[in-house]
């Protein structure tokens, strides 16, 4: 059990900078997920924590000790790989005990640890099988078992669920969360799947282009994104971004989307944006669930408008609707009984209490 700290960590390959100065504090027992598109440096960061990649500059600390030059085996970490990386010639039990046997643990202790981990992961009856005889999900359990028996300071997961089919992924996600609740080992988890990041993490680290865009709890990132990248990356379907301007009409601050569509801002938002330049190019960020069918009576902050739907996607509990606004495809979520149909007109309402305003040039959320 230990905290992990990264201080201005840089990784350079020849002239490509993969990781550009990362600062990150991971508390003891914490489950932190690094998420971002491919090539954002998340896997490199994880591999640097593991010691599989050298650090070009900066410091990595595990349990308070700088481990920059400590070889992987002395860092007291365990890693789970995307392709499981089980030793094909060993049985499940041998796979799990390999690290312990190398460290010459007593046989009885090895057996006890394997039994405990196998019970925890529900693979007791598989311990004498070879990896070849296991399904993908079972292999991933064994890979986790191999990490658990070591009882390391830190667990490192490198996209462990990417090779599984969608249904199994959901199941294993829950499994990983359960294991973490039991063993409470500090965990760093890398994924490109924002749903995985949101569901598993105590805190999510969104990375892009070798830098950290934002660190926060899943809810924090969802409701208060710091940049356009985070706003677009977290949440599915993604947040809508509509070009807009601020306008003062009759002494009240409005946001103008088109010549015809202009909404008055609710008081708390108006106060926040009061000092913005009126001619600045802005983006209105609205999540799909904040564009819904209009009702007879609305709470303050809701504004209604008419739209012609391009496409509707019935999901069962809701219907996703798509319509075009000034050339931008906008997604909303309406009640299945709202009467949405392909090509049909529908009166919609936007919830401006949950709006975001972004600088179009810098992408920063204002």
């Amino acid at each position, binding site marked *: 059990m230990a905290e992990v700290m990264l201080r201005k960590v840089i990784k350079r390959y020849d002239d490509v900078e993969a990781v550009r100065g990362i600062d990150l504090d991971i508390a003891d027992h914490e489950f932190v997920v690094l998420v971002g598109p491919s090539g954002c440096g998340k896997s490199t960061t994880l591999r640097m924590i*593991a*010691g*599989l990649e050298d650090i070009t500059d900066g410091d990595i600390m595990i349990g308070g000790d700088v481990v920059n030059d400590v*070889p*992987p*085996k002395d860092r007291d*970490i*365990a*890693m789970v*790989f*995307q*392709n499981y*990386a*089980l*030793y*094909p*010639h060993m049985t499940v039990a041998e796979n799990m005990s*390999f*690290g312990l046997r*190398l*460290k010459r643990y007593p046989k009885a202790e090895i057996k006890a640890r394997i039994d405990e981990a196998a019970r925890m992961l529900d693979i007791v009856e598989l311990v004498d099988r070879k990896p070849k005889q296991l399904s993908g999900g079972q292999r991933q359990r064994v890979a986790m078992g*191999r990490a658990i028996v*070591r009882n390391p300071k830190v667990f490192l997961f490198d996209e462990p669920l990417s090779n599984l089919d969608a249904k199994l992924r959901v199941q294993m996600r829950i499994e990983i969360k359960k294991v973490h609740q039991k063993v409470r080992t500090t965990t760093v988890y890398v994924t490109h799947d924002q749903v995985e990041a949101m569901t598993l993490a105590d805190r999510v680290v969104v990375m892009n282009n070798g830098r950290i865009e934002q660190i926060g709890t899943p809810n924090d990132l969802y409701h208060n994104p710091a940049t356009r990248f985070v706003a677009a990356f977290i949440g599915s379907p993604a947040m809508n971004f509509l070009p807009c301007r601020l306008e003062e009409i009759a002494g009240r601050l409005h946001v103008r989307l088109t010549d015809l569509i202009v909404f008055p801002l609710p008081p708390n938002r108006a106060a926040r944006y009061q000092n913005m330049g009126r001619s600045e190019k802005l983006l209105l960020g609205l999540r799909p669930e904040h564009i819904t069918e209009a009702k007879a009576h609305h709470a303050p902050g809701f504004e209604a408008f008419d739209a012609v739907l391009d496409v509707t996607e019935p999901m069962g509990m809701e219907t996703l609707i798509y319509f075009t606004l000034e050339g931008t495809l906008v997604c909303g979520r309406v009640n299945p009984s709202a009467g949405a149909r392909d090509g049909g007109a529908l009166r919609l309402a936007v919830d401006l209490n949950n709006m975001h305003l972004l600088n179009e040039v810098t992408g920063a959320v204002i």
Partner: protein
Amino acid sequence: MTTMAIDKGAPTRKVKHGSMSRDRAWALRWSYFFLTLFAIFSLVPPIYMLITSLKSSAEISAATNPWWVFHPTLSNYVELLTSNQFLTFFRNSALVSIFVVTITMLISVPAAFALARMRFWGSATLATGVFLTYLIPDSLLFIPLFKMFAVIGDWTGIQLINKWYVLLFIYPTLTVPFCTWIMIGYFASIPKELDEAAIIDGASWFQTLTRIFIPVALPGLIAATIFAFTVSWAQFLYPLVFTTSTDQLVLPVGIITTLIKGDVFNWGQIMTGALLGAAPPLIIYAFLMDYYIAGLTAGATKG
């Protein structure tokens, strides 16, 4: 697809194979034809050897049907297997092959591991270099090699020429490059995460090699072993050049030099000796054939 449609429309007709399986049937027929042809072609010499080895000298020189044994005799076998000379050749061949295989494996497996996994400066060039050395034929190499051992003998007084164990220094120039190349291909096909997992589990490079790579790459290892054994067992030019005394000869050279006296060919014993000499590789192949093929193909795709 069209035949399928017709079949559905006329269920009473005799079911025809689809065009795919008909193509495959023809391909199979042709391959059987050529395989049979090739099997006959390659099996005739050993069968002829076997027939001849069972004949007496008189019957061989008599103008009878060469493909039939009228008076079978085991005298050739008895004579060879009771001759100390032949058994010496056999022993020399066995010793040379076993030592060469051991030396080759001890060098090429760690070398291949280093070249495949430890990305050190110049490793890629070195790997190609290893393969290129294999392309130099032994008929080109034997003169400088002979000169080398002669010079070493002059300088140090250690006379290696005309000793069977000089071959232990020479054969690896053939076997090590090829076996290293096979093993590089095989090791390279092992996923990188496997050694990373081993390293995180606390294994040293050496433990990663012995406890993970060698067991996982066992088919490739066996293929390389068989290759090294076959090369050293069948090698003719080098022992012909480097060894001359009859007690230092290996089997292929020994048979030729002792059983051909001037223009007198002792055919019966030559054939028997060749047949007995071919037995060990044959037995090894028979047992390890599947491994050999698996090893060669796996190495081939990634090499």
